[in-house]
């Protein structure tokens, strides 16, 4: 048999099953999602009847759906803050401080702890009567200032998004550390010889060199924050009165509690487009700044 033929057989054989799985579990659901979003399917009837864009109209004009997007913004803001804290920590722990490797390892640790365990842990921290934080406030005489972490206020969303900050800030730091360490030491040395101070080094060497990584990191974090689900699911179930329901919480509630799969899918598609739009904007921005 010719070598070319053998190559072909090998490539086909090696790629066949992974590609089938890819199509079946990555691409087909995408098609299915669009199809369901255009229907009033209840999740059970055998055929899916297309009704057009009604679901989108209802979702985009319904206050409860828009408020879930609004609730989700708290997570996005937290994700952006997380970038700056992560970068700051990376710079701090790429300096001459002692024990910095141990510090890095500790700050990264929450990343590997089970998310449900973390959410339960914070559920205790946020419990109004039992909160260890409020206990301290009471002891030091700030009884009137005890915190109602989960309330009717919008701040509840920040309390919940802080949990993912706690879990992922070390991850962001580690990504930036990798970026910082890929910059050659000589560049810094040369600048130092020229008399550049700390802030000048950061501005003229560090920032331009980690720009791409910054884009990747912020994309990963925003992507994750828009899909926030576990914290509200475990701690508030989206309550009180939908005030902490994120888009995913709302979507799953629509599907599995009210059998409105069509509307749930439409909400999914809208979120998908928001995320894809962010990706596209970033990519073009990234390309432009490279020129």
């Amino acid at each position, binding site marked *: 048999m010719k070598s070319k033929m*053998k190559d072909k057989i*090998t*490539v086909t054989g*090696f*790629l066949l*099953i*992974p*590609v089938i*799985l*890819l199509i079946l*579990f990555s691409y*087909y*659901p*995408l098609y299915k*999602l669009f199809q*369901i979003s255009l229907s009033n399917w209840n999740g059970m009837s055998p055929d899916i009847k297309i009704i057009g864009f009604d679901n989108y109209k209802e979702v985009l004009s319904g206050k409860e759906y828009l408020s879930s997007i609004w609730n989700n913004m708290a997570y996005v803001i937290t994700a952006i803050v997380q970038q700056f804290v992560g970068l700051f920590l990376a*710079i701090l722990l*790429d*300096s*001459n*401080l002692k024990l910095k*490797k141990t510090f*890095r*390892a500790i*700050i990264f640790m*929450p*990343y*590997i*702890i*089970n*998310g449900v*365990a973390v959410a339960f842990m*914070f559920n*205790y921290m946020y419990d109004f009567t*039992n909160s*260890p934080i409020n*206990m301290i406030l009471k002891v030091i005489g700030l009884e009137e200032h005890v915190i109602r972490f989960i309330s009717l206020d919008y701040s509840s969303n920040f309390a919940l998004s802080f949990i993912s900050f*706690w879990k992922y800030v070390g*991850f962001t730091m*580690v*990504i930036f*550390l*990798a970026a*910082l*360490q890929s910059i050659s*030491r000589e560049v810094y040395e040369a600048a130092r010889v020229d008399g550049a101070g*700390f802030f000048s*080094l950061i501005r003229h060497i560090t920032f331009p060199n980690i720009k791409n990584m910054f884009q*990747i990191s912020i994309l*990963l974090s925003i*992507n994750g924050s*828009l*899909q926030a689900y576990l914290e509200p699911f*475990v701690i508030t179930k989206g309550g009180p009165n939908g005030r902490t329901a994120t888009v*995913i919480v709302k*979507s799953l509630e629509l599907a599995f509690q009210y059998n409105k*799969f069509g509307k749930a899918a439409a909400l*999914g598609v809208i*979120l998908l487009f928001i*995320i894809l739009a962010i990706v596209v904007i970033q990519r073009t921005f990234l390309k432009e700044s490279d020129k």
Partner: protein
Amino acid sequence: MMNMRIIPIRKNKNSVSSENTSTFTISNPIGKFFCYLLIAFLILLVFAPLAIILNISLKENSEYMAKGVYALPENIFNFSNFINAYKLGGFGEGFMNTFLLVFFSVPIAIVFGTMVAYALGRFDFKLKKLLFAAFLFPTFVPTMTVTIATFTLIKNLGLYNSFLAGIILYIGTDIMQIYIFLQFINQIPIALDESARIDGASRLKIYYSIILPQLKPAIATTVILKLLGIYNDFFTPYMYMPKIKTAATSLNTFAGDRMADWPLMSAAIILIAIPTILIYIFLQNYIISGVTDGAVK
């Protein structure tokens, strides 16, 4: 027949943990002091919740009610909460099922991932670019947004509430893995493949006797990350196989009424958190460099 020497591959030189030099120098002693202070605060932020949880997990509920959060436990060897949590949560079953999911899906994922990387890294063919893009695109499609459709698919395939649902969803090849493997494959000299071919080795043989052994470090990293991912994943089992309790979903059985028993709850949290913390203590270098390699590429 193949007595060729395998050239060892250096570990990725950018990995965070292997670096020991510093980029920045803080010389001002006051500045340095505040830096340490800030880091101390952050370390406290990481450890305080864990320490509080550990502290109350060793107390009887009555003891907790009487003495509060911060009093040290009367008997630090009081593991009754752990025993009760283990039984009530059905953690034995949960750990076993998680183990089975890992046992079946991780090896398959590794085989598929390395095969795809081998095909894309060593052969030229027409649709190569398209395939690359095809594997890349799903990374931009957030999995949670497609849940409704994936759920429908799993139901229609008759996989709902079966082990196979979890296994199939976990073996999916993602581009991060492919990139990590490709990086290593590109470092293996093609001359090795060619001389093996002249010796009459088939492509399959080259894959498992030349390529796979060289991928060992990448495979080790992927195994650890996959294992952590599956162990920590709550959503997949909760959504697609709710009747099969895993480590994460068995912890969730404590939601609701039992939440009033905080010591018991804390013990349950620790039981689920401990295994990955132990893995992290021993394998942190692999984990940190794996996580960064995946994100950077």
